């Protein structure tokens, strides 16, 4: 029933937008007789500009997001900021889910009013599931570097950072990855997830590999390093979370620098170390679901994320927004937040999709054995 009401509302919005557009004499690409269909709009111009998009999104009144933990890259503030600005309710499902969970939800719930509207996913999953996305280009499209977006707008990277070792500096000092092999680190070192399952953990093992003579094409040295850590009793196989860091169970954690930096709230002596000989970067990507039940709100959400305000909110969370270079040039980057980012020396490297697959395949058959007791 709600679905039906929704559909009428959408038809109404579409008709109204069509009327506006024809009145302006603009030539839009959408050739359907019913006018602009929010579900196929590829830019705000299709709605007759931002005000048209905002009106259409307000009519829908809600947005379904998935797998956005409030303490991840400042998403708590980003979600409440969106609701405050546009008066649109955000339904946040399964905040601790993985990228694959997001895609599974689109597949299993597609067509219902509970299905996710927008996705924030790792690149491996994004590239494997582009058929589930619909193209859209935000107003600030040119601010996203060419190598970090799909030319058609099926996906676009949003924020990223570098793989780091976060640690409680009141207990340890870390100046290299090999320091972790010292006896002082007994039962202290953890990953953010299982690397055969979680992207962040896979990158953690890859970073250890780079620091131990491996390369982006070979994660084996990283697996050997963790095997060694495990034999020494320095590795703890539990997942590092805000809770385990807070109570001191995982005082040393491999994680993205922007996630690790958030632990400073609970552990004031928390420090984030990016090894200069292993600067491994990683970006997540945004995409709009083809079956989004709230297509206009989904597009407005993307506009919000890629606006100066949205980009600076990610920066506040310690993540490096994808338009960072463009904002720096324009002078709109928040300098206080930028200065708080952990220092990074050395040349950043990024895993290509095929290198990520090679690493995952190696982990699949070797990880369990390497850290088995």
């Amino acid at each position, binding site marked *: 029933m709600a679905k039906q009401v929704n559909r009428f509302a959408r038809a109404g919005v579409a008709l109204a937008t069509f009327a506006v557009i024809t009145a302006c004499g603009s030539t839009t690409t959408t050739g359907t007789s019913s006018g602009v269909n929010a579900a196929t709009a590829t830019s705000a111009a299709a709605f007759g500009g931002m005000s048209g998009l905002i009106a259409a999104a307000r009519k829908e009144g809600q947005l379904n997001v998935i797998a956005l933990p409030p303490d991840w890259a400042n998403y708590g503030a980003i979600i409440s900021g969106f609701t405050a600005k546009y008066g649109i309710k955000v339904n946040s499902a399964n905040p601790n889910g993985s990228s*694959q969970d997001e895609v599974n939800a689109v597949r299993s719930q597609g067509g219902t009013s509970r299905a996710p509207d927008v996705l924030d996913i790792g690149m491996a999953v994004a590239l494997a599931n582009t058929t589930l996305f619909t193209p859209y280009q935000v107003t600030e499209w040119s601010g996203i570097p060419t190598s970090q977006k799909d030319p058609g707008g099926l996906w676009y990277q949003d924020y990223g950072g570098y793989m780091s070792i976060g640690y409680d500096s009141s207990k340890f000092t870390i100046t290299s990855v090999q320091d972790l092999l010292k006896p002082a680190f007994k039962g202290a070192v953890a990953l953010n997830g299982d690397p055969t*399952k979680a992207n962040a953990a896979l990158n953690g093992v890859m970073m250890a590999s780079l620091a131990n003579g491996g390369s982006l094409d070979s994660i084996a040295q990283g697996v050997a390093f963790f095997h060694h850590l495990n034999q020494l009793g320095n590795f703890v196989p539990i997942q590092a979370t805000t809770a385990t860091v807070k109570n001191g169970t995982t005082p040393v954690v491999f994680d993205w620098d922007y996630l690790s930096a958030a632990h400073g709230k609970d552990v004031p002596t928390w420090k984030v170390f990016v090894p200069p000989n292993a600067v491994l970067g990683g970006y997540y990507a945004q995409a709009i679901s083809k079956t989004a039940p709230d297509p206009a709100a989904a597009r407005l959400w993307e506009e919000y994320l890629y606006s100066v305000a949205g980009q600076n909110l990610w920066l506040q969370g310690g993540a490096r927004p994808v338009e960072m270079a463009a904002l720096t040039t324009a002078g709109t980057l928040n300098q206080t937040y930028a200065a708080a980012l952990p220092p990074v020396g050395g040349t950043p490297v990024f895993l290509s999709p095929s290198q990520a697959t090679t690493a995952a395949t190696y982990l699949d*058959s070797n990880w369990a054995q390497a850290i088995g007791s």
Partner: protein
Amino acid sequence: MTTLVSSAAEPAGPPFRGRLRVPSWVGVVPFFVYVAAFLILPTAIVVGGAFAGAHGPSLTNISALTQPYILDSFLHSVVLSAASAVIGAVVGAVLAYAVASGAPNGVIRRVVTSACGVLSQFGGVTLAFAFIATLGGAGFITLWLQEHGVNIYANGVWLYQLSGLILVYTYFQIPLMVIVFLPALDGIRPQWREATSNLGGTSWHYWRHIAGPLLLPAFLGCLLLLFANSFSAYATAAALINQGGIIVPLQISNALSSEVGLAQANLASSLALAMVVIVVVVTALYSWLQSRTARWVR
């Protein structure tokens, strides 16, 4: 419902005026619908998924089960379930006996049974974190013992290994055993023990020839329940041992939701199918034992 069924079961009798004649099987329809929707259908989906490949039927997922790390996870799962079931059953039975031999409506019995009711469901992330906070590397008991010169983790943090899981699982296995075993103990009458004494029997005779054989079928049934209970448990282990998919439910989770390109829903199905097979084997073993131990009861 009973009257309806019994009236329908009389073929010669005339139908009640104003009432529809309802076939006798109608009463069990809800049960069969339930079983079909929640047992048969999911099992069929699992079996279908296990034998489905990218291009039609395939045995790839079944042969993938023989990979060393998956075989290890099955071994771990069986060891974990068997060990925690045996410990839980023995300790729980002793505790239940202590409770049953007290006053039937006494305070102790009421307190213990309600506490067990709560604790038997106290699994998952909360239980795992309770152990992490008390016995983990930075747990307060660990630290207190260290201050007094005892390092329980001198040889590594065993809490995050299989032995740790066994300990944590017994925490909900023992209370469950108390709850499910108490009714059987209540069926044992004190008069039987008195009768044994009157006939010159010792305590050993009583347990060996009377209470033991009477309780054995129930004990084995509870043991099976405990085995299945820990065999299928997921959340506690997931929160405690995040790495390497040490037991089968964790491997299934990895196969379903890996975001690094290793998600294989069909492998998850074949893992689940193998778990079903193991439980079927254990259940068959149980019913064979049951038929032997309970033969004289009939």
